């Protein structure tokens, strides 16, 4: 097994915690893992990405080669498009939040962005902010994203859920429960799209 993904977003959107949850789950399953992160200047509201590679054999490069990613998971629609050259066009999925983060002027036309995303052979665009808000956990947007993406990621859902539990257990039971609820709602949203 070998699974490469790009996690994209804007500095401060919690992409490192998505990466760290997946990492924790992969490690608990005794898989190999490489997770390359952006620290430093770009974290000040700039475009940021993490490369995540999971495999059952040793992994070489810390970076996902362009054309190899089975998944682009993006916290923001414009950012989903920024890393398309990394996508494996034949098999890759783009799972992205539809809610834009307006910190650039001018922000490109949102309908045009959505059209670009829908043109891809395998893409899922949904409003993760709204999903998290409706479940009373507006800060758990990244859990909605992780849930939606998890349908396609070859790690058992139980392994991800237990990683969520251990990541948030310090913050108390309610936080754990609301994060799990948002994660499950996200997963449910894509369940029907899974090839098998």
């Amino acid at each position: 097994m070998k699974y490469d993904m790009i996690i994209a977003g804007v500095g401060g959107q919690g992409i490192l915690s998505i990466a760290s949850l997946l990492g924790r789950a992969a490690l608990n399953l005794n898989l190999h893992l490489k997770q390359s992160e952006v620290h430093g200047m770009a974290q000040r509201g700039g475009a940021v990405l993490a490369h995540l590679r999971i495999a059952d054999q040793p992994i070489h490069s810390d970076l996902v080669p362009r054309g190899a990613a089975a998944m682009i998971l993006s916290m923001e629609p414009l950012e989903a498009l920024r890393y398309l050259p990394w996508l494996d066009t034949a098999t890759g999925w783009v799972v992205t939040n539809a809610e834009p983060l307006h910190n650039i002027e001018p922000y490109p036309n949102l309908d045009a962005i959505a059209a670009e995303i829908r043109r891809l052979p395998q893409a899922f665009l949904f409003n993760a902010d709204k999903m998290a808000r409706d479940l009373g956990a507006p800060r758990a947007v990244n859990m909605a994203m992780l849930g939606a993406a998890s349908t396609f990621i070859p790690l058992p859902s139980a392994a991800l859920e237990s990683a969520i539990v251990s990541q948030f257990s310090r913050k108390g039971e309610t936080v754990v429960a609301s994060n799990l609820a948002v994660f499950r709602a996200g997963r449910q949203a894509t369940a029907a799209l899974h090839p098998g």
Partner: protein
Amino acid sequence: MDTKTLFLGDEAVAQGAMDAGISGVYAYPGTPSTEIMEYVQAAPEAGARGVHRQWSANEKTAMEEALGMSYAGKRALVCMKHVGLNVAADAFINSAITGVNGGLVVVAADDPSMHSSQNEQDSRFYGKFAAVPVCEPCSQQEAYDMVRAAFDFSEKIRLPVLLRITTRLAHSRADVVPAPARAENPLNPSSDPRQWVLLPAHARRNWAALLARMPEITALGDAFPWNRFIPGTNRQMGILAAGIAFNYLNECFPGGTCPFPILKLGQYPLSSARLATLQAACDSLLILEDGAPFIEEQLVGLFPNPVMPIRGRLDGTLPRTGELTPENVAAALGRARPEGPAVPPLVTPRPPALCRGCPHSDTYAFLKEVMSDFPAGRVFSDIGCYTLGALPPYEAIHSCVDMGASITMAKGASDAGVRPAIAVIGDSTFAHSGITGLLDAVAESSPVKLLILDNEITGMTGGQESLAFGRLESIAAGIGVDPAHIRVVTPLAKHHAENVRILREEIAWPGVSVIIARRACIQMRRKG
């Protein structure tokens, strides 16, 4: 600890050093090295053992403090980003002439492609310059193992050892299996003044002795397991892969299917015997190294016809600037793979920006208003979050070169007649290397207007304590700035008019002024 753990490259270095029995870490923050110190600061075992883990004022003081710990017989780790080694260079290069007592490992984290830096200098040149061994890991596990080996090596050959890492290793996590921890060294200060007092007579002797030992040091370094020759079936080309280049090479030939002979390197100086093994096994060479063509230039030399064709960054097989990537290495090997869809043209860049509510934005607001009266004036800035004031909507600064250069460049420009010459510096950068520049201005009563943006933290690198905290007014007064011209303002919109007035008053005065714009970084307040 002996189970698999996920470590950033930086954390692997830190845990490796703790397990190797260090008594202290000395560092000034700088991407991509910051997390080494932060990891040790957060490690309960370091607290229990009393490992020194406070930030230093700058990289030079860090290097010298570590050398002092080594003098006392204990092991010390020094960490910095690549440009930090410029600041520490005097101490670093002379530490090769004194040599060490307790093990001393200096970590330089290079940033090829300049993700968060002003240049992409390659620290391996410093190792060669100083004549000390350099190690360069290819993986987080190797980084962990190498640190311990580097401490042993340092104590065996009684020299500092430079560990060079690059951004992609420093900021990538992978699973690492740690080794059992060992005890620290006992206190055992050196009693050999001839080693440590670098009078010319001693230094000449030490330098000659160091050079005489280079062949032995090279041979010892070459024996480390990170240098390996991997035979191949196709002698058309031999590949020399240093540090993380080895990973990108393997990425192109999964499962060890590379037909070409490979020399994997993780240690310098280069061993000519080792190179000869590769040379004998191939008819041409491809050099893969992250950063400058450091190895390539040594092998190519200046002769127009080297012994065999050599390809790499110098002949354009790989780009001359920027980091190695899986893509450019694959292309160099003729194994480029198809990319995914092109980025649609509507995708605009999203550059970093000051956080909403950042105190610096209010400071730039009043500075810009005042400067609009002085089209001939200039604002010399420095390095930190506030450098983002160069970008729209602020466009408030005219320079940013190296830590501390705001004050000194403003003084030089003022010497040349620029009025007003404004300097803008952060509190941590001021502590790092602004104080001596301010002293120059005070000594000549230069009409330099220094704005210290005191957000009470080192913001750019993620919120480390700033050594100037609570000390700015007393430092300025202590080195001779007239207290009447040390002004403290609060950068908030409601004080805008008052701040404009104060800056105008100070510009009207023909001596050194220090205006401290004090308001905490909002990220720091969020952290609590």
